[in-house]
């Protein structure tokens, strides 16, 4: 049935257990092929002579036009929703995405990510006075100036704004300024130890 492959594409996205499933270009191609057949019918019908008895193509054309529109909507919704996920990931993972996710991106999506990062960087540079304002920080309301953290993986040296250097080796514990480690906690490098 028309539109079946298109809805499969949408269901793939909705039901995937993966954060970002591979771009299914094979299915996209099949859907576009179906569209070519639908479009061919419409073009042929329109150039044939209409006859209410022997060549009544009106319903056939209407249904196929609807199917074309439907396929288009599914394809665009597929791409649009994938971009929304990529956007969310930019805010959660930062500018470097895990290789497993990168591997599932289409060429267009890779380019989109670069451009999106650039647009955000431009905006953040131009707001909030001299140095810009990094909106990726303070994702949660701050409570304490300093917090206790445990290092979950080997990270190496971290230099703070104050010039102080911390050696973040696995399982080490530190007492550090919240504003400068929030990002590493969100990325899973550090763990916030909360005594309250």
């Amino acid at each position: 049935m028309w539109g079946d492959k298109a809805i499969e594409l949408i269901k793939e996205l909705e039901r995937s257990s993966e954060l970002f499933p591979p771009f299914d270009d094979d299915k996209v191609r099949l859907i576009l092929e179906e569209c070519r057949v639908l479009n061919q019918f419409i073009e042929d019908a329109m150039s044939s002579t209409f006859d209410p008895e022997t060549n009544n193509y009106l319903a056939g054309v209407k249904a196929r036009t609807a199917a074309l529109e439907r396929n288009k909507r599914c394809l665009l919704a597929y791409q649009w929703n994938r971009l929304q996920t990529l956007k969310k990931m930019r805010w959660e993972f930062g500018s470097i995405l895990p290789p497993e996710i990168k591997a599932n991106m289409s060429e267009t999506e890779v380019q989109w990510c670069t451009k999106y990062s650039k647009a955000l960087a431009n905006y953040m540079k131009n707001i909030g006075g001299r140095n810009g304002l990094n909106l990726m920080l303070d994702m949660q309301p701050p409570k304490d100036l300093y917090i206790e953290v445990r290092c979950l993986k080997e990270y190496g040296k971290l230099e703070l704004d104050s010039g102080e250097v911390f050696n973040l080796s696995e399982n080490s514990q530190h007492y550090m300024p919240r504003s400068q480690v929030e990002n590493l906690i969100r990325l899973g490098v550090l763990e916030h130890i909360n005594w309250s």
Partner: protein
Amino acid sequence: MSLFRKRNHYFSLTDVLSSQERVPITFQVAVGYLGELDASAEGNILAAGTTLELPYWLVTSLYQEDGVGIDLPKQYKQAWRDILAADAKVVNLQRLCKYFYEFGKLVSLIRVRDHQDIIDLLIQTLVDRHRELTNWAVHAIKQENEFFEKLDDIEQELSRRATSAELNLSNWLQSDCGQIRKAEMVQAHDRLVSSSRTFNT
């Protein structure tokens, strides 16, 4: 953060999926060039008297043609209206129709004479199920349970929101709000990666 977000729009997965639900449609006259729609049709002509269940998006392109009629999908017919009126709480909407409310709204647009009845049914059903829904959402933190599985798509979203609001509230009451955690997607990704590693070794 996304409380303001609109659920219905051109790219919305919910909208795309709910407009895929099927509507019974009858062709009282033979129609040319639609044979593809019926597996038992001979050639490309849809025979007079054929009844099919077609996706909503396709039905909207055909239902106003001469000799074409549509029927209500069963979940909005009298028999189900009676069941829902008797005790809406016990019905497994997920199984009856995953997009019960949203598809209902769509159907009401093409069945003008049933419009008000359908809208009333949808509102009454949600009102009847609402108390159980809130009650469950407030007390359940884990979502994988029997009750949740019986909810329609929009009900599931409502209870997810209610549960997360409840969780935030209880975190706040325990003065845990300063706790910084791993980002949601980073956490999901780490879980997937570590489970695939366990699987491979």
